[in-house]
């Protein structure tokens, strides 16, 4: 073996692209209008996007209501400036359109050394299901900062957003995105996170409402030692399409990623999609990754698609794994509860409650915990038409 070959074997001399996640690009030419047959679009009912992919300009916006702890600032910068200051380029057409059409990028600046238990609350609300809204958000977290950010979506709109989170070295960020839209909303969102050296990020996507919600959560690393925990919780009712796509790009050594998404489905044509992917690059030695998806199918007529993927370029890792399970109620759990005098309906509620509570605890933001439990309880109390499994 010559020296060049050994160097080539040890290093990624030409950039390896993921098979499942096309390279990010601002160029709309790199993101042609999908036909619905593409691997990344085949689960999404394109007709129900109601024309978002056509990319019509629009100056409609959601209403913003924010609660900011002392020290947090929210400037607006141009799209060009966002691209220059570390924004992660769009990965699909709706995100690329948002970058072109948003008319400016909203920034949330969390200064270095910032530390607070008080969460940054951003409430976004839409009033019109036909309003087309392009959003662009850049969250900059300074070195060694410690913060919690909650972004909540309510009301209705046709909303496509490009969100980037750049986390400084040694910082600790918890970011929660709640999708509690009305039944006629369409939401396409791309959250991409760049994790600084030795930084820790927790990202949680919680999706309950909306006609069609398709969220990307991508993570990559700016240096060794970074850690990302990607959590998700979703509840699809009759006719809802909820899609979550995850991508952890391990591009630095000794980094960590852990993905855990849990969902429940009830009612005719409730459809959830979960696609997880992890790319372990040649340079990413000693990394650890695990991704997991669990789906609980509560009634007949639902469809849960779940596809975990792994792309591995080096074997010198601490651990890599994935798991996926989709199933109905465990009869033994229900039998146990009923044998203790709990009626069947309450027993079902308790089982789903337990299934989700585990994850709500992991999100670990006390300020919104009660609200999450309330949303889950409200979903559970909805009458389910159709046959109960």
């Amino acid at each position, binding site marked *: 073996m010559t020296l060049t070959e050994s160097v080539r074997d040890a290093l990624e001399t030409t950039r390896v692209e993921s098979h499942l996640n096309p390279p990010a690009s601002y160029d709309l030419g790199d993101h042609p209008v999908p036909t619905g047959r593409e691997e990344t679009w*085949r689960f999404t009912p394109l007709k129900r996007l109601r024309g978002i992919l056509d990319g019509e300009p629009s100056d409609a916006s959601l209403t913003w209501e924010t609660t900011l702890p002392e020290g947090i600032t929210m400037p607006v910068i141009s799209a060009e400036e966002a691209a220059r200051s570390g924004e992660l380029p769009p990965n699909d057409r709706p995100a690329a359109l948002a970058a072109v059409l948003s008319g400016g990028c909203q920034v949330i600046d969390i200064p270095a050394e910032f530390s607070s238990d008080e969460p940054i609350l951003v409430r976004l609300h839409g009033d019109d299901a036909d309003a087309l809204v392009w959003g662009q958000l850049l969250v900059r977290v300074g070195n060694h900062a410690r913060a919690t950010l909650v972004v909540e979506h309510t009301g209705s709109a046709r909303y496509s957003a490009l969100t980037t989170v750049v986390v400084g070295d040694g910082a600790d960020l918890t970011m929660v995105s709640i999708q509690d839209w009305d039944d006629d909303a369409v939401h396409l969102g791309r959250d991409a996170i760049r994790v600084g050296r030795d930084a820790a990020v927790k990202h949680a996507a919680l999706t309950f409402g909306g006609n069609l919600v398709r969220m990307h959560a991508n993570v990559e690393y700016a240096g060794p030692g970074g850690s990302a925990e990607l959590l998700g919780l979703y509840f699809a009712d009759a006719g809802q399409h909820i899609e979550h796509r995850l991508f952890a790009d391990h591009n630095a050594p000794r980094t960590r990623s852990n993905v855990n998404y849990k969902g429940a489905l009830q009612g*005719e*044509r409730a459809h959830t999609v979960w696609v997880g992917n992890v790319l372990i690059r040649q340079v990413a030695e000693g990394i650890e990754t695990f991704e997991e998806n669990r789906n609980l199918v509560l009634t007949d007529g639902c469809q849960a698609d779940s596809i975990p993927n792994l792309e591995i370029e080096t074997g010198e890792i601490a651990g890599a794994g994935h798991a996926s399970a989709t199933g109905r109620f465990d009869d033994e759990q229900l039998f146990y509860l009923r044998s203790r005098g709990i009626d069947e309906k309450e027993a079902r509620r308790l089982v789903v409650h337990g299934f989700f509570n585990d994850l709500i605890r992991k999100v670990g933001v006390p300020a919104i915990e009660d609200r999450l439990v309330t949303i889950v309880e409200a979903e559970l109390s909805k009458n389910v038409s159709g046959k109960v499994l």
Partner: protein
Amino acid sequence: MAFQRACALADVAGDEALAVTMGAFDVAVARHADEVFAVENICSHAAVALSEGEVDDCTVECWLHGSRFDLRTGKPTGLPATEPIATFPVDVRDGDVYVDTETTLNGVVPQ
């Protein structure tokens, strides 16, 4: 029953279905010998337009995975599709095909 004109009978080829958009619905109009049928133009498995597949022996084939749907009943004749597609009432008058998308013949709610 509200029949609306979908297309001219002459536009419907014998070996493939014709895609017609009627209000909120995409309908595939197909014929078998002298009979004319209208079904929902979307495969119940992977959401492919059935009008892109071929029609043979009173069935329409989804080209992507090969499931065939009976034009009379909407039922798939083989995997991977397991759920029927909606079938709509058809009336042929003076060489034109009329379809009623408000009711389905087999009780399936269109997607």
